């Protein structure tokens, strides 16, 4: 296991997302899947995005690659991807399709949750990896095959020559995910987006995959955006954490800050709802009261109104505000209740 990197983020971010809004215009109404998200991805660091299903974590990263299909639309936001010297930047939101092709799979790669469905079943593993290489790097077919073989060795697969000729269904779940990682990294991307990469795997295979990602990050120096609902996986891999709820980031900061000193009630309840080593046998776990509102019926104003016992009418319209509690540790507060500190969802309690 690689030791945790707890350095300060002195370097400027590699990818800076500001006020990203992705809405889905469905027949039932507008779903604000991502509603004003800010992200900073630092070079050679791992950003963990954690939240429950429907909180917008996957849509956020799909928006970064502009992979949003209709009826979805990115309606606002900038996504600045900087170069190594941090002098020039491109805003992914405004790129044309040929520029976008270079970013997708070139500077930003993605690995998906289900390695079975994300490989083509009718092409060999080798075909699919070399396709990525020839598209993004100036390699001949022969060089591409050599590089693909080299990458399969780097991700710890035995017998790479034979693997290249195999189809995805001939590999086990863990091997498939390794092949997926090899395919994503063979173009030397600056950012790797991993969308629940270990959810479909057994714990032991999950541990191997996480160790592999950590190891490859040390060697290759790419940044990782790790999306998961598993708080344990985040604790193993991430340097910074963003906690999302209903399309908004409710708390963000370093792993230590967010896990050890959570301020927002939602973060606290999320952290307390998983059994830990300290939980006694058959002890009831604390749970978040209330239910998650339906996507089209999300409250305006404060996200937590359905869970709030207060009766401040301003909460219906007042926009939530983000307050920097300490350096790099941001918390979402209910706007109207912030000054008086009266709301039950005022993060510091009443």
């Amino acid at each position: 296991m690689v030791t945790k990197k707890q350095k300060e983020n002195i370097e400027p971010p590699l990818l800076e997302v500001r006020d990203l809004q992705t809405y889905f215009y469905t027949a039932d109404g507008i779903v604000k899947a991502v509603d004003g998200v800010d992200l900073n991805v630092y070079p050679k660091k791992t950003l963990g995005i954690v939240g429950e299903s429907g909180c917008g974590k996957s849509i956020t990263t799909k928006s970064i690659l502009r992979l949003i299909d209709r009826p979805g639309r990115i309606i606002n936001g900038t996504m600045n991807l900087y170069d190594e010297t941090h002098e020039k930047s491109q805003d992914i939101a405004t790129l044309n399709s040929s520029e976008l092709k270079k970013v997708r799979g070139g500077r930003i790669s993605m690995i998906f949750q289900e390695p079975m469905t994300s490989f083509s079943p009718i092409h060999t593993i080798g075909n699919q990896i070399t396709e990525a290489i020839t598209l993004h790097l100036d390699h001949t077919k022969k060089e591409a095959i050599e590089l693909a073989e080299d990458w399969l060795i780097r991700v710890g697969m035995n017998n790479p020559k034979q693997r290249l000729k195999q189809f995805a269904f001939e590999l086990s779940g863990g091997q498939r995910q390794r092949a997926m990682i090899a395919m994503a990294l063979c173009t030397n991307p600056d950012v790797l987006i991993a969308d629940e990469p270990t959810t479909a795997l057994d714990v032991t295979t999950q541990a191997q995959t996480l160790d592999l990602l950590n190891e490859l990050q040390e060697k290759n120096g790419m940044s990782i955006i790790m999306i998961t609902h598993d708080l344990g996986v985040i604790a193993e891999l991430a340097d910074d954490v963003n906690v999302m709820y209903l399309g908004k980031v409710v708390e963000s900061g370093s792993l230590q800050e967010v896990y050890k000193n959570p301020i927002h009630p939602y973060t606290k309840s999320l952290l307390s709802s998983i059994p830990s080593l300290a939980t006694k046998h058959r002890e009831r776990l604390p749970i978040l009261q209330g239910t998650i509102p339906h996507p089209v019926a999300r409250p305006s104003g404060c996200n937590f109104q359905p869970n709030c016992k207060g009766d401040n009418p301003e909460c219906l319209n007042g926009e939530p505000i983000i307050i920097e509690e300490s350096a790099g540790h941001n918390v979402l507060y209910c706007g109207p209740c912030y000054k008086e500190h009266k709301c039950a969802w005022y993060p510091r309690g009443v």
Partner: protein
Amino acid sequence: MTTKSKIKNDNIVEINNLKKYYSLTSGLLKKVSGQIRAVDDVSFNIPRGKTIGLVGESGCGKTTISKCILRAIDPTDGDIFLNNEDGAHNLAKLSESDLRPLRKEMQMIFQDPFSSLNPRMNLFDIVSEPLLLNGVKNRTERQDRVEELLVKVGLRAEYMIRFPHAFSGGQRQRIGIARALALNPALIVCDEPVSGLDVSVQAQVINLLMDLQDELGLSYLFVSHDLSIVRQISDQINVMYFGRQVESGTPDEIFNQSMHPYTKTLISAIPNPDPDFKKERQPILGDTPNPSDIASGCNFLSNCPEPKEECTTSTPLFIEDSPGHSILYCAPCYDDHKCAWYPRNESQ
């Protein structure tokens, strides 16, 4: 449950030497070319009102065991006794018609709450179907029972006319639980009941299962690959590897005093949510062997630095080391304690 006092046996289910082999055939004539030992000589009891956890990686046979208990599949060999007020019934040997009256005592909660509910049936139909099939013809009677069940699992009675698509994953899992409870079963097999749910909803469903157990005296067989949840809810845990029990004991014995290297590996692979946690991960086993290659001998041969000739053929021993805590030993290595997979090797 008033009938309980009449029953002498404390175990609702006793499983003795359960085996389930699948034959592999090849060629036009379907010649048997090998066997997959999905479940190989597994024995354990499910005490009344307690929870037994089954953990292990995919393919280790945990779902096969639960299906054998419910006789969704027929075991190859072994006995499964269900003890009720009429005495012991061997589920493994009973005919389909003799089995039918016993089926209502065993129910199942499924992993995926999205595919286990019929989208064309409303909640009343879903929850009352087991009642209808078991002779409750009166509609008002069924309606009252469904109402009672929905309230019991934390849903509102007026949801009865709605269809599954109107509910979230956690609510659907509650519907599945209500359906399982409809016939007052004594045993509920929970096959990965929370693995498709979010963490906060997971906690709600686990809490509900524990509350219902306290209230109704249910026994659970809890199948999961999530070890931290199994530790939380179970009274006894069986760790499985390729059809065999590797270690069996209380949660404390499995998590804090585990002896078998495989159990240690499995536990050290769980991601810990504490960022300060310094982990000493046990080496992970190499590629899992092809199930058809597993011979009758030791399961861990491919990871053994110096396997002996006898190791490939002699059946491993599952020995009770201390009361209630059993461990799988490689038989030829048991006496001289030499094998790397001899579970006590490290502590000695």
